[in-house]
């Protein structure tokens, strides 16, 4: 009697244990496949940027590992591979992204502060209205901007693109900073004012440092948007004067052929600054998005 029950118990335990093992295996397999799908495409690009063109184009495929700096040398030399002026593009991208980020943060922060601290009529309508401007597709906007910029004469200039990216980034910056300023208790600022700070000083000395995390994440998003933007940049830039890296990527495609190796090398150059920047502040990035959104 007891022996039978004990046997039954061990059997139940065994199936339970088996089920848990199966679940754990499934969990592991799921994670493994996900991570492979995420990493493999990027890895393939990096690996190919170090492979000679002959090997990339080899038929049947050549899987033996090899290493060459051919594409990087050509890219930075600027002479080979059709002479793509990569340095110029890189500098343009950097100048345009950094200045538009700084300006967008200043303008957006002031707007976010207004939404977080003041009460006024139709506040929600203003807020949603601003956000909807962010939703206008770049391609749709590029048609009229192309015509207007050409008339005004700021097509193919840094100034034109900076202006566009500031306007693109302001709404989202307002959203994120608004959420962060709301987290800061009003008393903090009031205390500073009692201690003799002006409003301006109270903001920069007390509230701004407290909301730093939110501002940092807003800045990263603004920077990434400008650094990666293509639809507008491809129409508003014409020459090496103002072309950014995403537009420069097209220089590696001719009518019927694509210089895959050179393109991969440029892709690596494009992704490295974004990667470094994001890893430095990834914690702020996530909290910025969630706080800004949920509690805002």
């Amino acid at each position, binding site marked *: 009697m007891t022996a039978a029950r004990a046997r039954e118990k061990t059997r139940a335990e065994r199936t339970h244990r088996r089920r848990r093992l199966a679940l754990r295996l499934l969990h592991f397999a799921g994670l493994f496949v996900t991570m492979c799908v995420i990493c493999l495409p990027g890895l393939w690009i990096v690996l190919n940027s170090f492979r000679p063109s002959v090997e990339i184009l080899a038929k049947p495929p050549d899987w033996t590992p090899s290493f060459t700096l051919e594409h990087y040398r050509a890219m930075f030399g600027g002479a080979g591979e059709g002479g793509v002026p990569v340095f110029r593009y890189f500098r343009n991208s950097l100048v345009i992204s950094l200045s538009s980020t700084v300006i967008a943060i200043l303008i957006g922060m*002031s707007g976010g502060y*207004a939404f977080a601290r003041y009460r006024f009529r139709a506040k929600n309508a203003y807020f949603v209205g601003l956000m909807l401007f962010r939703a206008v597709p770049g391609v749709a906007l590029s048609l009229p901007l192309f015509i207007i910029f050409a008339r005004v004469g700021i097509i193919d200039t840094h100034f034109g693109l900076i202006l566009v990216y500031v306007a693109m980034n302001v709404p989202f910056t307002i959203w994120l900073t608004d959420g962060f300023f709301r987290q800061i208790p009003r008393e903090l600022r009031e205390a500073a004012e009692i201690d003799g700070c002006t409003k301006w000083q109270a903001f920069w000395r007390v509230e701004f440092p407290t909301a730093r995390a939110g501002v940092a994440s807003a800045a990263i998003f603004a920077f990434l948007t400008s650094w990666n933007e293509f639809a507008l940049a491809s129409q508003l830039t014409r020459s090496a004067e103002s072309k950014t890296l995403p537009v420069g990527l097209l220089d590696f495609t001719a009518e019927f052929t694509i210089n895959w190796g050179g393109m991969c090398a440029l892709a690596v150059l494009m992704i490295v600054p974004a990667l470094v920047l*994001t890893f430095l502040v990834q914690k702020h990035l*996530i909290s910025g998005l*969630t706080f800004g959104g949920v509690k805002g």
Partner: protein
Amino acid sequence: MMFPTLRRPPEWLLLLMPAFFVIAAVILMPLVFSLYSSFTPYRLTKPDTLWKWIGTANYQKILTDGKFWAAFGRTILFLTIVLNLELLLGLAIALMISRVTRGQRTLRTILMFPMMFSPILVGFQFKFIFNDNIGLVNNALQSLGFTNAAAPWLVDAKLAMFSIMFAEIWMSTSIFAVLLLAGLFAMPQDPLEAAKVDGCTPWQSFRHITLPFLTPFIFIALTIRSLDVARAYDVVQIMTGGGPARRTELVWTLMSRTGYVDARMGIANAMGYVSILLSILFTLYFFRKLSAARAAIGMSD
């Protein structure tokens, strides 16, 4: 209150002024211009055509154009499939990572990887990977002996649609996973433990405790994502350019071809307005859902 305009404007208005100003100059004004030009037969090559008013002829033309409706329907289908799959996959990934005990931070960092890729880079990357001749997918399939023929990933209509959807999902699932993961971390654990004690199955506690808590996070992700749906333009433009034979044509690629290749700006702007309306409706819808979800769990102010 006799001369309200003479009073100093309120502080909030002063603070919002720069934002209003830059948006008015760079987005609103061009939009007004493009609205006007969508009522003209404007062609880039003939500047005079800008002053000829033709009423709603452009809109009538595109609304009776089979090609436009095909592209429009395909865009809706594309967005529906892509957004749903991104949400489901993102949720699954977030749940899987939240159960990991060691190396969680590393996994989360890897997860953010696709978020940093430029859409155009994603397009090129998958154009390369799905290339029928030298792409990773076909090379692997052939070397492993699954097939001898080269699958025309970007040439066959159905496969091309699959490929651009794959690229889009690869690019944007991360944002869902990252936000939902943050939601899972923020979740109080007591209700879950109580449910376990009360004998709830894992499915029940997921359905009735975890999912309601995650709802606002889901809508934040959908709202943020809907601000950017037109990013798909970059990917598709590079991978297939709307081809082969318009089989992957979306509203955005059709618009840019009409405007820049055919130089028919008037009609392209009319299409632009349809696409703007589409984006705005998506965003507005998710915004309202977000407010409702916030109110439901008492997070709004």
